[in-house]
């Protein structure tokens, strides 16, 4: 869901796009993926590394065993783009299969999705199931997984070279991104590698999508 405060819009004079200054756009970005893939860790890293002035408090509703029960929430102010104050609200969903109702709730009003894939070989099937689940839940809201701003993140790359067997990037690309062909990033949410690259890319895609919608609306209102 996007909320715009347009001081000059709606009266008799429809102002051109460039005049919509001092306004605000709120975008909702959801981190999706199987249980224990590192969605919350992504948000925690962003929260830990971000300046106090631009972030809100991080809210987590989790169980004692580190599992997200409902969602995590973090609000960030990305500064101004074309005169609009851009605020993104980052959410995570609970990854476990039986929390599907909660995932649907969190997806309400979503503007962009980061799909966090788990690089552990044992999680290969779960990644695919979770991506199919995302497509299904978006479709129920009338959104196509092919058209919504989407970025893939292949997390836990820091386990490469350890005893844990991990999937090569090209296998993950084939499994998760061969049809969608969206931007993808190897990452280690725990160490921070790739976290901001992912966030930057999804923010860019969402803002681009929002700008496109504003242009369409602008034409409609003329």
């Amino acid at each position, binding site marked *: 869901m996007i909320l715009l405060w347009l001081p000059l819009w709606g009266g008799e004079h429809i102002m051109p796009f460039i005049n919509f200054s001092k306004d605000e756009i709120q975008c909702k970005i959801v981190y999706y993926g199987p249980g224990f893939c590192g969605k919350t860790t992504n948000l925690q890293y962003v929260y830990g590394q971000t300046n106090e002035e631009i972030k809100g408090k991080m809210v987590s509703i989790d169980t004692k065993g580190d599992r997200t029960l409902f969602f995590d929430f973090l609000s960030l102010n990305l500064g101004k783009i074309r005169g609009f104050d851009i605020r993104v609200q980052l959410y995570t969903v609970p990854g476990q299969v039986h929390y599907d109702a909660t995932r649907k709730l969190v997806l309400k*009003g979503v503007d962009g999705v980061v799909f966090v894939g788990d690089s552990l070989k044992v999680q290969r099937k779960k990644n695919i199931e979770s991506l199919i689940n995302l497509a299904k839940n978006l479709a129920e809201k009338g959104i196509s997984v092919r058209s919504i701003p989407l970025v893939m993140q292949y997390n836990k790359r820091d386990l490469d070279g350890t005893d844990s067997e991990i999937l090569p990037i090209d296998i993950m690309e084939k499994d998760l991104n061969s049809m969608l062909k969206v931007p993808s990033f190897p990452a280690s949410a725990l160490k921070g590698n790739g976290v901001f690259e992912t966030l930057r890319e999804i923010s860019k895609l969402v803002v681009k999508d929002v700008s496109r*919608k504003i242009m369409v609306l602008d034409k409609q209102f003329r």
Partner: protein
Amino acid sequence: MNIIITKKDLERIDLCLNKMVSSARAHSALLIDRSGQLITHHGNTPGIDVLSLSALTAANFGATAEIARILGEEEFTLLFHKGKTENVYFSAIGEHVILVTLFDDNTSLGLIRLQINKIIDELSGILSSIFEKRKAPVN
């Protein structure tokens, strides 16, 4: 779906909230949408993280809607949480928006409910005109 709110709409909403806050002696009121985005807030909210409150309220409403469904109800349209000094009253306005009223012991639940009922029609009117006229294309 996207919502566009003009300054004019916002002024009308703020006027409503202002009226409600002062007549019910609540200390603040927030208007949020069901996806957890804050539309506007009015009154005295120092130290309250209104953005997190908005996200949690939407989640709270979503969770209780599921409880309602299990019980064979369509939805619970109002929720009330009572604390030692702070209380919060949530009311659904139409299918997209929630009004959150925060109040303390300076007023009573009865007065709050009465004043909310009075402004809900007015707010619904403003909001439905926003949703009807300014629906953005989905894609």
